[in-house]
């Protein structure tokens, strides 16, 4: 049976990976080991044990080199641990750090790498991974033929492993590492828009049809009335900066599965739609009756989003 390592810089995602690992090990949690590197590893290791990890591996010699996340250094460290553990699968979270690690680690291990995994099924004794392809127009299902695989899983794909009385143990592994070649000069935390749109039950998504940031207050009012959150397309966040990137939906933003998505003033390019198409109900509002977004919608109204928004607020109240 394969031996699985899980690693993420984000502990909550790591707890999801514990669930995924256990499933891939056919329910045998003893085959899943968590790798915990970097600051506060000791306390974090205990948290992993209390989530049912059978083994937590932390760094002994070389651990001072793990204080900042350098992808090359982390890949070297995980590759050494994978070698010692004879791991055949390494699971990581599909975050930016997860992805920069996954490719390099796979190359070090001569392994296949599948990123952006949003579902895993076991078919005929092998794991089948689903990920978006063709810019999100399709979902491809892939399996791995190489002896070792590195797989990065999208956040919230699996539930976090629940808390249990810890029975596992921590193992310290000495690592041979060289100093990082990339120097961290400074780290600025982002203007903390701490919203997690992936958790929202209702999303009010706006695109460039909004017209300007001064129109946001009405959209925010609608989101409040609906008990949801405002989300947006990529141009609204990265080009116009009317909303923070935390609210960006789509291939390079968040992929969400709310009960209801209202898509307003956006054309519905597949790179956006991939972020909301798993919603239970989708409503589209656009001035262009030929906009693609209507094809994704249960209900559509041709009209200006600002006009419709005010009417919606009035009727919902």
């Amino acid at each position, binding site marked *: 049976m394969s031996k699985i390592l899980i690693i993420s810089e984000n502990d909550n995602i790591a707890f999801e990976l514990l669930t995924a690992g256990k499933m891939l090990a056919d329910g045998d949690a003893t085959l899943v080991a968590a790798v915990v590197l970097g600051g506060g590893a000791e306390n974090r290791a205990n948290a992993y044990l209390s989530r049912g990890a059978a083994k937590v591996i932390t760094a002994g010699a070389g651990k001072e080199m793990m204080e900042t996340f350098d992808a090359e250094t982390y890949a070297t460290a995980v590759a050494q641990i994978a070698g010692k553990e004879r791991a055949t699968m390494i699971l990581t979270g599909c975050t*930016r750090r997860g992805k920069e690690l996954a490719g*390099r680690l796979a190359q070090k291990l001569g392994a296949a790498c599948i990123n952006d995994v949003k579902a895993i099924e076991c078919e005929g004794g092998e794991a089948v991974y689903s990920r*978006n392809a063709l810019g999100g127009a399709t*979902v491809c299902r892939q*399996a791995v033929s190489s002896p070792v695989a590195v797989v990065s899983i999208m956040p919230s794909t699996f539930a976090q492993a629940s808390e249990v009385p810890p029975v596992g143990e921590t193992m310290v592994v000495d690592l041979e590492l060289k100093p990082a070649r990339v120097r*961290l000069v400074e780290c600025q935390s982002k203007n903390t828009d701490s919203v997690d749109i992936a958790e929202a*039950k209702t999303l009010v998504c706006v695109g460039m049809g909004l017209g300007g940031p001064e129109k946001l207050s009405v959209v925010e009012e609608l989101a409040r009335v609906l008990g949801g959150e405002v989300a947006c397309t990529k141009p609204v966040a990265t080009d116009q900066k009317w909303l923070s990137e935390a609210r960006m939906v789509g291939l390079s933003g968040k992929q969400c599965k709310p009960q209801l998505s209202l898509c307003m003033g956006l054309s519905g390019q597949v790179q956006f739609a991939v972020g909301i198409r798993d919603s239970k109900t989708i409503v589209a509002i656009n001035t262009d009756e030929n906009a693609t977004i209507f094809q994704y919608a249960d209900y559509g109204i041709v009209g200006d989003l600002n006009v419709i928004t005010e009417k919606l607020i009035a009727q919902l109240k």
Partner: protein
Amino acid sequence: MNSIVCVKQTPDLQQVRIRKETREPILENVPLTIGNIDKNALEEAVRLKEKQEGKVTLVSVGGEDLEETIKEGLAMGADDAVLVVDPQLDGAESAVVAEMLAKAIRKIGDYDMILLGEGSSDNYSGQIGPRLAELLDLPQVTFVRSLSVEGNLLRATRNMDDCLEVVEVELPAVVTVLSEINEARIPAVTQILKAGRKPKEVLSLSDLGVSAASLGKQVRTLSNKAPLQERKQIMFKEDADAAVAKLVLALKADGAVGGY
């Protein structure tokens, strides 16, 4: 300052249709283009060249149409191109593409920086940059939203999930950029005409000492279909007040509003 920019030939995604009966994509006769974020990487390299002396070389791996597709990149300001062409490389998996890129880049030899998009516009898997860095034993700086080069030192701002990271590294290095780094230029007609005359070196697998039979196959794609979309597609065509009223009624009936 010599830059290598790795680009991927992809179908023009705006023109990919889905066959209704099978939900499979129709890729025949879809025009091929260079990936969107790859163009941002190229734009950044061309801007660096315009500020400092040097040249920009495109490197790409793909099937027969690559010579034609690459002209767009040459028109955007690259000086020349090195292409690895073989029918088997059309749609090849990331590990194979990275290996072929590394072999072609070793042949070029003289470079300060290798730039790529953070991911291709079709698969967006983001493996090639880190794999290439490992193959060439170079440092990697991924997800870059702005950069500057002074002498041998690259300073870059990386846009990570929860923070902006400013990093420094001695060149050479592998750099992957985000689309937000710049707006890629659209080449003028005169540039497009000149692009056909810029030098292109076309390498075969055997030029790289690779046999087609030895190409790795680590990932099998079992199916590739559009997800099932079962939407009601009801349009409310009344005037705005009546349409909104009907919408609210429908959402309440579905339990999509109220109730939580």
